[in-house]
């Protein structure tokens, strides 16, 4: 019988995206982030825009004009507080 994969929850997906950026020395190309996040292009685009609006991530450009994604201070705080946020959300069924 095949392995049944659990659908990731919204908070978990956001955490995963942020963690990928952090694990890549806080600088990753959008295409690589999309690949590592295991999301469809549409979902990734939705989450990406959401994280940018929430000021958890931001886009930066290198000298050659290539786009990279990095975490903001809020992004680092989210990473640090993720277990607490997840515990709170689960406990109060939010």
């Amino acid at each position, binding site marked *: 019988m095949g392995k049944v994969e659990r659908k990731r929850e919204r908070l978990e997906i956001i955490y995963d995206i942020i963690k990928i950026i952090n694990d890549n020395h806080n600088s990753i190309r959008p295409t690589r982030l999309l690949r590592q996040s295991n999301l469809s292009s549409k979902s990734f685009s939705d989450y990406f825009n959401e994280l940018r609006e929430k000021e958890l991530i931001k886009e930066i450009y290198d000298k050659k004009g290539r786009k990279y994604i990095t975490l903001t201070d809020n992004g680092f705080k*989210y990473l640090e507080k993720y277990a607490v*946020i997840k515990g709170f959300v689960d406990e109060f069924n939010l």
Partner: protein
Amino acid sequence: MSAYQHFDLLRFGTEFAYSVVIVIMFLFIYLKTKGLFKISKYRGIRYFRNAFLFFALAYASRILYHSVKLMLVASEYHVPGRVLSVISLFLVSYFGSVAIGYLIYSSIWKKVEHWKFLVFIHLFAFMVILLFPLGFSLLLFIVIQLGMIAAIFIVNRGKKIRYLYSLVSLFWIFNMIILYTRSLLSFEAKLVFQVLSVILLSYFIAKVLKWAK
């Protein structure tokens, strides 16, 4: 006999102090969860916080009611008690219904992710207060609020928190009954109920503080 002679300072003081303590406790939950919301911008946390903000507003309306009553007694200025209680009833029941509505929405927003539901909460609460000019029935009000508690219980099925949410809401309804049927309970019985309410909320706050330190 003047209004002042009818005034029972002990009962008034207890009722007033109780409302102030409850408002502070609800506001404490609202403010303590600000940090979690600020970092995550998670909508479930926002609706949860709103629920407790509106509970605080509902109890603050009770303080307003008692303050006006005290001013009237002190000045011996005559205003029909009915007018005061209807205005107070409007505010208290509106804010209370919105609070329970937000509590429900905080658990179902992922399934019913739509701004119209928030409009519905406020419209529903407004419709509840419209019952009053049409001949207020406390029983009807209680039935509506109990229906909302049943909704809380259903949307949180399988989760332990449904008992606590339902208890907080039940205590809220019981507060409403006590507020508008003054002779229902003796002073001592009300005091016991008020102490129980504070204990229940303290337990709730302890649960919140486990995460939002």
